[in-house]
């Protein structure tokens, strides 16, 4: 009995892989997902890590003292902003932001130099906060400008105005020992690929067979339904191994140092894909069309990026979002991948994450088989 189940499972796995090989669109898709995702990542990271940002700002120097001119010099040399215009009044500066001519207005008020000598100066900035990142760069430019004034004054031993160094410096030491870089979302991408791959596999494995009319024939054959589902699952396991290997190669080319055991990384990716497949099997018992199922799955996937820790840690979510994240098995998969890749965590450290994924799949599979039987 067990021998026959294993043989049937192997036969179905072989059939699935053969079908994929004959379907160039699906085959290309399996390879293209990782490459396109990484391409998008590179676009975003290169924008953030550009040497200059040139966010347009206007400056109103209402003080005209050496202190305000020194700050203005710092702003014109800033790598964050590009001073497009020097205006005469505060209102002109604000108007430039309101009209969309500049993203930020920096106003150095009258009395700036005198107040600086007493250590009580301030600068007004008005930013177009609908441009999230750019407006932060304007604040960063002013902060850095003030800090540079102090550094220069200390180095030259000249006029230090009333400026002072921040009393306390915070030195950060990340646990992984990695330098701060733009790669913290790469393990999340691996989890995303496993999830998307699992969803895509279920569309290929069940829905398209249903549309072609081959699924009822398969279930009417002497092969048990468990063997059919196990076979399709093993095909997903093989494909997940391929996709994960491709992602890890791309990570290595990108210079990412993988600390953890490769076997555990593959195991985690496989469990994420198997859980996704189990969920897909359950949904596909009700939603029959392959295109409809794919759209639904994509619609589910995008919110997962926010909630399951793909881009940002679920720790930073609002309480409601954190509760949802805690109830999603993908969150544990992504978490395990990050700790494996960055911290080199061992099996014991991620065992509970893997267990959650495994148990969730075990719960969903019988439900999927039951629903499929009912709808036959």
């Amino acid at each position, binding site marked *: 009995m067990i021998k026959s189940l294993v043989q049937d499972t192997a036969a179905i796995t072989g059939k699935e892989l053969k079908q994929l090989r004959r379907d160039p*669109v699906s085959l290309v898709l399996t390879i293209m997902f990782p490459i*396109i*995702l990484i391409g*998008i990542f590179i676009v*975003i990271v*290169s*924008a*953030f890590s*550009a040497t200059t940002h040139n*966010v347009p700002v206007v400056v109103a120097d209402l003080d005209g003292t050496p202190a305000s001119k020194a700050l203005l010099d710092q702003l014109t040399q800033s790598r964050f902003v590009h001073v497009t215009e020097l205006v005469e009044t505060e209102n002109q500066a604000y108007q430039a932001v309101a009209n969309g001519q500049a*993203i930020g207005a920096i106003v150095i008020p009258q009395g700036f130099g005198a107040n600086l000598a007493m250590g*009580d100066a*301030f*600068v*007004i*900035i008005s*930013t*177009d*906060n*609908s441009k999230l990142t*750019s*407006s932060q760069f304007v*604040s960063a430019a*002013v*902060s850095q400008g*003030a800090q540079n*004034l*102090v550094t220069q004054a200390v180095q030259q031993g000249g006029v230090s105005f009333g*400026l002072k*160094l921040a*009393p*306390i*410096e915070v030195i*950060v*030491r*990340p*646990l*992984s020992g990695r330098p*701060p870089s733009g790669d913290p979302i790469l393990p999340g991408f691996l989890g995303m690929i496993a999830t998307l791959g699992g969803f895509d596999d279920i569309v290929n494995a069940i829905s398209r067979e249903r549309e072609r009319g081959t699924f009822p024939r398969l279930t009417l054959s002497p092969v048990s339904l468990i063997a059919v589902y196990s076979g399709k699952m093993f095909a997903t396991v093989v494909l997940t191994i391929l996709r994960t290997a491709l992602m890890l190669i791309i990570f290595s080319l990108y210079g990412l140092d993988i600390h953890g055991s490769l076997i555990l990384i593959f195991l985690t990716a496989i469990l994420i894909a198997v859980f996704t497949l189990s969920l897909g099997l359950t949904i596909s018992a009700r939603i029959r*069309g*392959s*295109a409809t199922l794919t*759209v639904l799955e*994509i*619609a589910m996937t*995008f*919110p997962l990026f*926010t909630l399951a*820790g793909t*881009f940002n*840690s679920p*720790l*930073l979510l*609002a*309480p409601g*979002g954190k509760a*949802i994240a805690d109830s999603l098995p993908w969150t544990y998969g992504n978490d395990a991948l*990050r700790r494996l*890749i960055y911290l080199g965590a061992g099996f014991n*450290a991620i065992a509970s994450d893997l267990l959650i994924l495994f148990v969730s799949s075990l719960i969903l599979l019988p439900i999927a088989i039951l629903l499929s039987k009912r709808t036959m």
Partner: protein
Amino acid sequence: MSVASFFSDSIAVAENEFRQFRRNRSAILISLVVLPLFFTVSLGAGQGGAGSTFSPTAHIPIAWVDNDNSLASIRLWETLATSPDFRNLIEGYTEQGAIAQLGTKRIYAVIVVPKGFQNDLENGNQATLILYTDDSEPGVSDQIQATLTSYTQNFDPNVEVQAHLSQIQRESVAGVGIVSKGATFAGFDIGLTIVIAIVQIFAGFYEIAGGISREREDGTYARLLVSPIPIGSIMLGKTLFDTVLTVIRTFTVLAISIYGYGARPNTDLFTLLALSLIVSFVTMGLGFVVAALKMGQRAVVIIEFFLILFLFAFSGLIIDSNLLVGFSQAISNALPFSYAFDALRRTVLLGRPLLSLTFDLEYLIGSVIVLYALAFILLHFSRERLIT
């Protein structure tokens, strides 16, 4: 052909679309319920409602190791522990013991006050705090560092109680205060500008391109093309159908956002609806072009997925378009959706009147015309080939 007949044909096509839509429960569910609900609720859950505020670092378990045990270090502890940003500071760890707990999910950062902290402050030197972080949690390290820095850079060890630093104190650098005057927005309101458009793009593209490819695969599209109904009527009929769905989706997203999460768009309903419709028309135009290229349903879904990913990278959703560099900036400038997101942000967040966004509107309307014209020409040739 009279105008009346053109419109009656269009209405007939629209009626046919609605009939098919009514018979497809999955389509109704996905288009009108799942898409608006999933995107809006996940945004609200992740960012919190528009009226609510939360500190991302407030509940993160952070170990506090005081190796100085001085008045200054105790005052810093009091400042942080009574702040709304560090409610889960844990004492009692040794430095090594706390660091060993990082990566176990029990604590995510360790703040160490080194020996000589008070001495440095008293002597006018810059004191240091060491922050060990579990950097396997993306964003957590930066967030804790930024929040901690905002408290420490203006910390005065001579002041006994400084539990609540004002915003200007926290933003002050090197003795220069920074007064921010720009309007600030809740994360949910910013996200709303994205969700309104993404939901329309997601659903509209599939309804047009996917709908036509499904009809093509069923064999009914060829019959529709060779019928006496003009191409323009077919396109207008399908557009009318999707316009109604766009309106329903817009109201659904807004209802959940306003009544569920307290969103307060800084513009009127007409502007929101008009922008939703413009985004939808651009998407439908693109959908018609893709459909005219005789894509299968699966190909349409794949294109849709990549379209959304493309938008995230190039339309200013993750990073402002003006910060993109090189060819990515050129792509962003060419994408009509970049202008749609820009217009949504300017109206919903800044309250700018719709008609003042002339360039955005011109570009979007121009894109609609170009895409519809291109689709019309392609579909016309496709019909000619079918007939001959």
